[in-house]
């Protein structure tokens, strides 16, 4: 298995200063509601050849009832 450059980087975590977070505000990303995810999430989508990335983007918006989305389409 070959790896892309970033996959070979071992990222250590360096502690600059100890700090506690207050759970009264913000939240664990995995606990976001589905409503929030639909307007602030990402999908690893397998685009079939055929429709363009732009068409797929429109289609996803229709399915989810949202007005904004973006793709990082394939360069061919």
């Amino acid at each position, binding site marked *: 298995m*070959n790896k892309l450059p970033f996959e070979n980087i071992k990222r250590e975590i*360096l502690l600059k200063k100890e700090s506690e977070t207050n759970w009264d505000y913000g939240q664990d990303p995995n606990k976001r509601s589905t409503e929030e*995810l639909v307007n602030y999430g*990402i999908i690893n*989508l397998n685009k079939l050849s055929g429709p363009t990335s732009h068409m797929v983007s429109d289609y*996803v918006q229709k399915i989810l009832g949202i007005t904004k989305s973006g793709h990082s389409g394939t360069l061919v």
Partner: protein
Amino acid sequence: MALGKATRIVQTLLNAGKEYVCLMYLHKPVDEKDIYKVAEKFTGKIKQLPPIKSAIKRVLRTREIYYLNILEINKQEVLFQIGCEAGFYVRKFCHDFGKELGTGAHMSQLIRTKAGPFTDKDWHSLHDLKDAYEFYKEGNEKELRKIILPIEEAVKHLPKIWIVDSAVDSICHGASLNIPGISKLNNLNENETIAIMTLKDELVALGNSVLNSGEIMEKEKGLAVKTKKVFMDRNIYPKFLSKK
């Protein structure tokens, strides 16, 4: 694909390395040994002229091929896997490969198998998405939550800096990150794209480091990251008045 307020995160994926599996068709039969020879030559840094039909200026530019594996050769069809830098055109690559080989060649099929942290191992089809959304409307959100991931999944490949609660809201207002606001950090270089995170692992913003991690660890004050794109809404974290 990024949804709603997450839309602008796609830039980090556009700038990330990619992997493709491609089927190339050679215009004449050729000795397999020659195919391997050209493949070896076309690994590492190579020059590429973007195709006529592209959105960027057509000047020769250098792109790195990290790895190139010939998976199968069947007469004039060559199936290969390629790991490459962002902005590499595989269709043009096939054309250039055919030229070098002396036979001519074109790309006949292409699948992207990696884009930054995303791979073909965990992708979903539009049909999966549509079905999952129907379930969700009927009250079952389980499937949809498997498909739509938090925006933080799209910055997994970037170095991160975790900031203290009191620094969050000013970043949300577009301020740059100073050293006193930092709690933890990955090892990172100067002038890299950095994901600025809360201590709850929420993405706050993307920025450009002006120092490396060694310098950040050493210094007590000063600018560490210039904020470029803010993702977290304002006023989620409270405003803290400066102690002065």
